[in-house]
């Protein structure tokens, strides 16, 4: 490589700053410093690249950078916090697209300019980059569609789905291997078939992304988003191998390992094995259970009764779920928290790792509503305290509170770690109706004697409880 010293130095600085950025992100008090480090690192890398002698013209670069920034700034500043999962899916989509496009350009550049320049390894890695890039592109686009409600969020399944998916992946892998063995594929049937190999790889990758995501339901999105995050990182890393650029390799590896760790955490929180995730077979949802449920009795309560019980409690734990995000109830929940705190009630939040549609989703929403982060406790932190809690208030969460996960071996969610709300002295569940959760299973929590069902829209119901508590002063 003939990179000038200045460029290499700026890349080295950028790599170090990216590592520091992630290190500083591990605690809220240093996290914003981490963002600064990342920004400076990125700026250094861009400037360093523009100093390269290969860059011959700047007008298109400046224009496209401005267009990108012009699209990116409104996305970041105007997107409501409830839409953060969608934005994340969209950004994986752009990341994958960029990797795919660069890979395509690199392949044809190498073919057009210096015939056999592509060696076996580079060509194989190029195929990997293109495969990962384009599958992340369409996969994330599908995830975005599901999260945004453009596509149905329920899993779309058909017979032999895994067979089709694995078939597409196997074909793509075979083409990748063929390209690694003979990078230009000139020998095959006079070059005509060889000409089609690379476009076919792109097509298969695009298809695989779509097919991989359609069988996955909304509640599995935290795992999927983490996995796509990992793929986007790995494709950037593959690009680094192709371009012989260590900064790309490092940044991609950091992103890849981050996505990998998050998807493992999400898997553990749903008691799914990692192979299960790798093969994308985690859409098999038990759909048939609903319907034959007997009408077991439930106790329900009006907002004034519920507010009275909460007001007299000593400690309250609120368990939020995706339903809170859908109802946009986080600000009302904060008002409730304030009213109760004023009366000397100790209010905390118990947050399940897969609550919501992406890792940490609930924390961001509650932080947006100005709830101090010391009150937000992880599942493992809150569970030992649950037996001493007076009221556990479940808002829009279902399967993550189902005690069947602990004892009912026939239940599809058996073995999944849950928040032990059933151990609290009183349980309240805000819910629109008696419908089953994502996994399609009845929640026995709702039929327990200490459980009060609070039927209604979360935002409205909590609002009425706040009014009740405020007027009681």
């Amino acid at each position: 490589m003939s990179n000038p010293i200045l460029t290499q130095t700026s890349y080295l600085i950028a790599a170090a700053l990216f590592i520091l950025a992630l290190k500083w992100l591990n605690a809220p008090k240093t996290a914003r410093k981490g963002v600064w480090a990342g920004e400076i690192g990125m700026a250094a890398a861009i400037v360093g690249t523009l100093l390269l002698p290969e860059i011959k013209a700047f007008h298109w670069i400046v224009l496209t950078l401005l267009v990108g920034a012009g699209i990116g700034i409104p996305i970041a500043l105007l997107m409501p916090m409830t839409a953060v999962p969608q934005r994340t899916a969209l950004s994986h989509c752009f990341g994958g697209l960029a990797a795919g496009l660069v890979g395509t350009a690199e392949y044809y550049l190498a073919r057009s300019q210096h015939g056999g320049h592509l060696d076996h390894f580079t060509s194989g890695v190029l195929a990997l980059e293109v495969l990962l890039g384009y599958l992340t592109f369409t996969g994330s686009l599908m995830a975005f569609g599901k999260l945004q409600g453009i596509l149905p969020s329920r899993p779309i399944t058909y017979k032999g789905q895994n067979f089709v998916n694995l078939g597409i992946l196997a074909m793509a892998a075979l083409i990748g291997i063929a390209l690694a063995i003979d990078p230009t594929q000139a020998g095959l049937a006079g070059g005509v078939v060889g000409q089609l190999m690379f476009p076919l790889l792109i097509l298969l990758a695009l298809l695989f992304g779509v097919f991989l995501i359609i069988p996955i339901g909304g509640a599995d999105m935290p795992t999927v988003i983490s996995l796509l995050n990992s793929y986007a990182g790995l494709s950037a890393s593959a690009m680094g191998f192709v371009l012989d650029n260590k900064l790309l390799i490092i940044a991609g590896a950091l992103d890849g390992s981050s996505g990998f760790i998050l998807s493992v955490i999400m898997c553990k929180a749903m008691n799914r094995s990692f192979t299960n995730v790798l093969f994308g077979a985690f859409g098999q949802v038990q759909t048939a259970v609903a319907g034959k449920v007997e009408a077991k009795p439930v106790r329900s309560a009006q907002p004034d009764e519920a507010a009275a019980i909460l007001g007299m409690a000593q400690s309250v734990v609120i368990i939020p779920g995706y339903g809170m995000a859908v109802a946009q109830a986080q600000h009302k929940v904060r008002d409730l928290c304030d009213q109760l705190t004023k009366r000397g009630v100790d209010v905390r939040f118990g947050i399940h790792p897969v609550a919501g549609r992406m890792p940490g989703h609930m924390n961001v929403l509650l932080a947006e509503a100005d709830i101090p982060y010391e009150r937000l406790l992880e599942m493992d932190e809150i569970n030992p305290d649950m037996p001493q809690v007076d009221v556990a208030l479940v808002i829009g969460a279902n399967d993550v509170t189902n005690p069947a996960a602990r004892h009912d071996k026939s239940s599809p969610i058996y073995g999944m770690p849950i928040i032990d709300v059933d151990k609290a002295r009183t349980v309240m569940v805000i819910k629109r109706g008696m419908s089953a959760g994502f996994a399609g299973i009845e929640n026995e929590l709702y039929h327990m004697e200490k459980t009060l069902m609070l039927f209604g829209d979360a935002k409205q119901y909590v609002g009425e409880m706040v009014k009740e508590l405020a007027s009681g002063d």
Partner: protein
Amino acid sequence: METSSLVSNLYVFVLATFLGFEVIRRVSPLLHTPLMSLTNAISAISLVGSLVILGKQGGEINLFSILGALAVTASMINVVSGFLITDRMLKMFKSRTGGKTEGGAR
């Protein structure tokens, strides 16, 4: 690529992956969403590769400059929106003592 640079690149990849595991394992679940948007912004470093493709064409309009221009735009969207939204999210995490993102061990 020469074998020596291939091997050193593999070393870099493996070490960076392990480093990533160690650093990211320590991130509190509280911050998992900002973590994802920050790593997203960082992996938009593929901007560097896109810039080279576009810049090499010297302003000519051909297949490569179109692919490069699209890739630069897509990566730049991620760079800008990734860093900005991470900061916007982190600004919201407040401690009980009132300081913005200061203080507050559990």
